[in-house]
């Protein structure tokens, strides 16, 4: 039997959070962490967590699994169980609403700050704004972000200053639009990032790269933003 320990907190009932232990029979199968949670929820309907697509596309079920942020739906037990124990907590650093559900408001506020949409005030062409294959290739490794918040909530700089540091996810998206040949607001975007917090609170410890369930590299994108700032300011 697998020992499963889950963070529980219902602010309407509990004075403080606690860890609840469950026993789970995997029947020898290497199932996903989300499958375990779904089964346990049938036994204890008060257990609360977010989930939707169950295949690593929607980014709803980001959580801290045995100490490492990840998506429960694409994390098999073979990667998550340590000494026959599975420990599940909410993503760290953001307020807990209940059990494994966190308030992502601060995370989205930072995403909104970087203006995550194409800015181009020139008249739209009849069909579409064209890109060369090389220009389009620059967006690879950037557009795939699903905003699950695993990276930003693994980042100490984001823990300490979630209201000032944009965080790895937001910065990856910022570079996605800085690198887009169709976007014309590059200088304006860079000017909004050149303060000691927004970008430069990243000290390059690469927790974000380690946990990203999509295999993306926010630290590299942040390096590109820094180089663009240097090019424009020197």
């Amino acid at each position, binding site marked *: 039997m697998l020992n499963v320990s889950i963070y529980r907190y219902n602010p309407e009932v509990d004075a403080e959070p606690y860890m609840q232990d469950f026993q789970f029979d995997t029947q020898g199968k290497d199932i996903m962490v989300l499958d375990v949670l779904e089964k346990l929820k049938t036994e204890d309907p008060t257990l609360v967590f977010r989930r939707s697509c169950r295949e690593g596309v929607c980014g709803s079920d980001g959580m801290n699994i045995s100490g490492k942020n990840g998506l429960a739906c694409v994390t098999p037990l073979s990667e998550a169980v340590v000494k026959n124990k599975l420990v599940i907590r909410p993503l760290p650093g953001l307020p807990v609403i209940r059990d494994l559900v966190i308030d992502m408001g601060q995370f989205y506020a930072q995403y909104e700050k970087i203006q995550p949409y194409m800015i181009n005030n020139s008249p739209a062409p009849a069909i579409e704004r064209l890109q060369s294959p090389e220009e389009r290739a620059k967006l690879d490794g950037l557009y795939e972000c699903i905003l699950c918040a695993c990276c930003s909530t693994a980042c100490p700089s984001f823990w300490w*200053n*979630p209201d000032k540091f944009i965080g790895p996810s937001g910065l990856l998206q910022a570079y996605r639009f800085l690198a887009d040949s169709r976007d014309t607001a590059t200088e304006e975007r860079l*000017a909004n990032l050149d303060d*000691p*917090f927004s970008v430069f609170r990243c000290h390059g410890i690469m927790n974000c790269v380690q946990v990203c369930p999509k295999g993306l590299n926010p630290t590299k994108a942040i390096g590109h933003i820094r180089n663009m*700032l240097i090019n424009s300011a020197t």
Partner: protein
Amino acid sequence: MVTTVTNLGRSGLSDWMIQRISAWVMTAYLVFIIGYFIANPNLDYAQWAELNSLLPMRMFSLITMLSIAAHAWIGLWCVLTDYITVRLIGPKATAIRIFFQLGMIAVTLLYVLWAIDILWGI
């Protein structure tokens, strides 16, 4: 854009660049001093005083001291703005942070002036 007034360089990019350049200066000074000690195993006070009375050496020492001061200012400013915040320790945090920031800046400037006094007093 986040506004700040107590950081050294006024912008994130200038702080970042000062941090990198000052690190190179400190590394160069360390390599030179260690190399000098290795090259002069029987170093005595007269030779040491002569080295430090040369104008280029004084300049090198002063630039290194300024680099240490700038590096410390930026680094400690980051530490203070990470840990002494309203989010972490409550509404008194701003006053406490300003106190430590100004104290850190004052100590840093005093060390720079003291270093100039020592270097040009040799």
